[in-house]
């Protein structure tokens, strides 16, 4: 499946900002499951310096410096991506999770996708006995890792309420866990924290999800959102498999990957520092248009939407 992506972020400041330094992780991941056909980032006002580098887990990071005074900063990322990821075949359920854990601890690779990077807790995915206990209920000794993880992802979907007002972008897993509500970022963090609590290598994935419009209705532009889910390393044979606890799905062709890291902080699409005395507001709009849809992205009838799904 091919996708046209458009992701526009607009910062508005109450007082002029004289200097901004930002790090953008807005270029989709290039890999065996996904090919980036075209990709561009447009920043207004134009940056005085723009650099691209490969980040710690292989993500493409664009750093920009804007040193003209501005009250509004607009960042528009566009790309065309072909996703080749196939659904996991039935029966491919991987080794038992206990074996996967031993395999991960014995990993002999420091490569960016080595499971060894994803075993340990981080600031946003601290271990917590309550979360670990919750996850353990799906991980009976000897159970297949894929089966257990999918069961967990279904359980989160069933028992947690999707509520954009319950959490902030900086909320650690345990708060959302206690409240039993949150958004995709929170569900991913909870699942990661629990899996790592068992010693399993789990990663945070930021990206997009194709949304299917209600039957008979056109897709609303800008109504899509950035998304987040979990990659779990399921042993040498299977490698990384994506689980989406927000939708109780095993990740396949509908998900487009931006970046993979240990938690949100590693992959935040937008980060940086600005010099400026005032307050800021942020608006984000995202479009994920499957390549076979004829709808064009050129028209400017934007609907602003909350971005975190």
């Amino acid at each position, binding site marked *: 499946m091919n996708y046209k992506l458009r992701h526009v972020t607009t910062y508005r400041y109450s007082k002029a900002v004289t200097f901004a330094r930002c790090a953008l992780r807005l270029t989709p991941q290039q890999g065996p499951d996904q090919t980036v056909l075209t990709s561009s980032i447009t920043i207004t006002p134009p940056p005085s310096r723009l650099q691209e580098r490969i980040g710690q887990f292989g993500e493409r990071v664009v750093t920009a410096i804007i040193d003209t005074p501005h009250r509004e900063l607009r960042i528009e990322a566009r790309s065309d991506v072909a996703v080749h990821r196939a659904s996991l075949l039935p029966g491919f359920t991987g080794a038992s999770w206990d074996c996967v854990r031993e395999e991960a601890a*014995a990993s002999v690779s420091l490569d960016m996708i080595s499971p060894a990077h994803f075993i340990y807790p981080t600031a946003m995915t601290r271990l917590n006995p309550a979360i670990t206990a919750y996850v353990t209920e799906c991980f009976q000794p000897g159970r297949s890792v894929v089966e257990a993880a999918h069961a967990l992802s279904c359980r989160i979907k069933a028992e947690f309420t999707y509520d954009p007002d319950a959490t902030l972008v900086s909320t650690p897993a345990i708060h959302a866990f206690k409240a039993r509500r949150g958004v995709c970022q929170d569900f991913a963090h909870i699942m990661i924290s629990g899996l790592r609590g068992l010693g399993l290598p789990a990663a945070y994935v930021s990206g997009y999800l194709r949304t299917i419009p209600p039957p008979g209705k056109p897709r609303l532009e800008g109504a899509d959102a950035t998304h987040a889910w979990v990659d779990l390393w399921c042993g040498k044979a299977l490698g990384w498999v994506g689980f989406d606890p927000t939708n109780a799905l095993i990740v396949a062709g509908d998900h487009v990957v931006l970046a993979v890291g240990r938690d949100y902080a590693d992959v935040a699409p937008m980060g*940086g520092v600005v010099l400026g005395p005032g307050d800021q507001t*942020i608006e984000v709009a995202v479009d994920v248009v499957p390549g076979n849809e004829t709808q064009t992205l050129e028209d400017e009838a934007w609907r602003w939407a909350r971005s975190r799904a």
Partner: protein
Amino acid sequence: MDADPQTADLAPSHDDAASARLKGWLEDYRPFTDAPDELAPPDGSTPEPWLRFLRAVAAYPEGEFAERFALATRHIRDAGVSHRIYGEDSERIWPLSPMPLILAEKEWTEIAAGVEQRATLLEAVLNDLYGEGRLVSDGHLPAAAVTGSDDFVRAMRGVKLPGGKPMHLYAADLGRGPDGRWWVLGDRTQAPSGAGYALENRMVLSRAFPHLYNAMNVERLAPFFSDFRANLTAAASRTDPRICLLTPGPFSESYFEQAHLARYLGFLLVEGDDLVVRDGVVYVRTIAGLKRADVIWRRVDADFIDPMELNSSSHLGVPALLEAIRAGGAVVSNMPGSGVMESNALLSFLPALSRRLLGEALKLSNVATWWCGQPAERELVERNIDTLAIAGAFGGKAHLAVARGPRLLADLSPDERSALRVAMHERPVDFVGQEVVRLSTTPTIRDGKLQPSPFILRVYAARTEDGWRIMPGGFCRISDQKDARALSMGAGAQASDVWVIAEKPVEKISLLAQRDGARVRRITGNLPSRAADNLFWLGRYLERAESTLRVVRSLCTSLMDPDAATHSAGETLDKLKGLLVDSGAVEEQSLGHRVTDVAQAALYDEEAYGSVVSQVRSARRAAASMRERLSEDFWKRLLSLEARLKEEKQIRMSESAGLEQAETALQDLSTLSGLTQENMNRVAGWRFLDMGRRIERGINTSRLMRKLADEDATIDDLDLLLDLIDSQITYRSRYLEGISLTPVRDLVMLDPYNPRSVAFQVITLKAHIAALPVLQDDGMPEEPTRLLTRLACQVEVQGAAALDGPQARAFEHMLLDLSDSITDRYFLQGANATPTKKLGGLA
């Protein structure tokens, strides 16, 4: 009797008392039965260097040893040698033992060789982990034994390090095991602390016992630091580089040490906000604009060093510092990520890695350690769970029970124990089992007797072009526990100096540049904006304290005046009290209190922001964040003034006592101002300190003039005004006819020859600003210059007769504007550097 220890040292003491003392000490000395001791080796002898030391100590007449040490210690206390426990406002006095740890050269050679080998090994492992990663891919080191460390900085993998070396300073913590051999207990590869304390300890002991120190051939520390500095300098790409010590700031536990090292080594002490990265190059914000920072010796942990790429909540770091390293624009040492070598998990692999990488066994073994991330090791730990200590594989974060270091299961409560067992079962990768280390003991003096105390020795190594150089000495921490297990070394430890005794006389060297290498310089670079800011405010606070003290003094004098006719006492008192309320020294509701109570509050009330004690405290805080720029005498005086003000507040004060206390404090302040006038270099720093003083004095004098020399001012008011601005004598010598309004106004406001007048402050300020650097070379005056020129003209042409309250207020406002424009132009929080905030939120 000749008490000179040097003579005493050369010949056996013929003084009976001394011999008896020595004999008594040695006979009463009771080392632990289960641990080796420095003074009492197994063969029953007393090591020669110890004997020489103790003999010399015994030769001091009764009490002199303690007295000498107390004097030298007082010197450190007064100089503020103390370390701050994070989150605590007051500084803890840092205890030093009068007894050094004494090691003979022969023994030291072994230690040094072992530490040198270990530094070489750790450097090789670091180079591999951040380079090719062969140790992992070839199966010699599990990846998960590396990735668990918060200090494994993935962003540094594959980066070509500017300067080439991952570590310039390394330290090893050593203990002597039951078999008498030295063991490595832990490695300090991130930002080893304590070297500055070692220097300070040496200063105290060599000052307390100079003859003894010289007679015993103690190896000097200076050449080590000189080498360290030379090699950091060589790492830079410019020939005359600017080297910065990046500190987490005055709230850091070892801030004093960092300030001390910066001053000793001639480095610029900076905080994260002082630095800025532009186009891959690091700069210091100075009063002359951005100046290149070539080398950054960091004391900030890696995770906090760059909020752009690492921990984004850090306020201690420098955004884009990693980018600068990648671009080759700055040497950051030790490299961010070097701390990965400190984790316990790696200890278990080092013996094998040494054989693999160096082709030889470790010369100093480290504590036997088993990482539970491997099945066989995990089983071994489980089998020996009751005899091994359990520790976090990557520091204390693994589990609450081991948060503060290795623990024996037997020492835990049943609940803690079972929680720990569960955690070890769920995530074995987080834990190691370690052999329980017993430490040897060294003699210290407690209650007038020699007592054995367990100790840990930290030894430092500096990277030079051709390998590692070991500091002959170190930082020794002594436990006050009677338990020699390493894991009981906790808080409450003392420090002691470490004397390595050379077999031949040592050359006296200090940190003097080689005779041919020294380049003459008169100014040591541009003043950082932060330091300028602190100096400016130091000046303002000191001046405020002084003016409040003068009001208090007048208040007390008025009360004591027997001739009520010369002072319409009630009115004058009310005015004085009003001044104290205006300056925030006392609260308005306290005006009804007894006058002496008001005076007392103005001096000592720590709650009131304008009281003398508060102003002095603010001055001390401003001074504390740039201690390296102030002379030791200045700092000592300021500390003792604050301490005295805090002590004195207990006593209920009479007016004469109040007068005396105010007088004494005024004398202290004039000593401080004398010290700055006589001892500070006439460079930018001094100018900012003086500008702060001048602006404050100008503002204050204008205010006083408005209150006390308005149209219906009485003779008493004018008299008081002359007192408050210390111009009584000048006036009387100039105007024999007595006090009248216009001459007073002229003297107070306009007279350029009176050092207390507003005109004098303005002229001085003008000279200061003119001597400071400008940012642009377009010849246009900067804002402070423009404001000041206008003010100076107005003051110059003003006539005294027409100088009324509103005009004085106008001068006052211009001075306030000047202060703002100085802030904007020179300081960090000025317009050039509005507070940074995070770009983030929804995404």
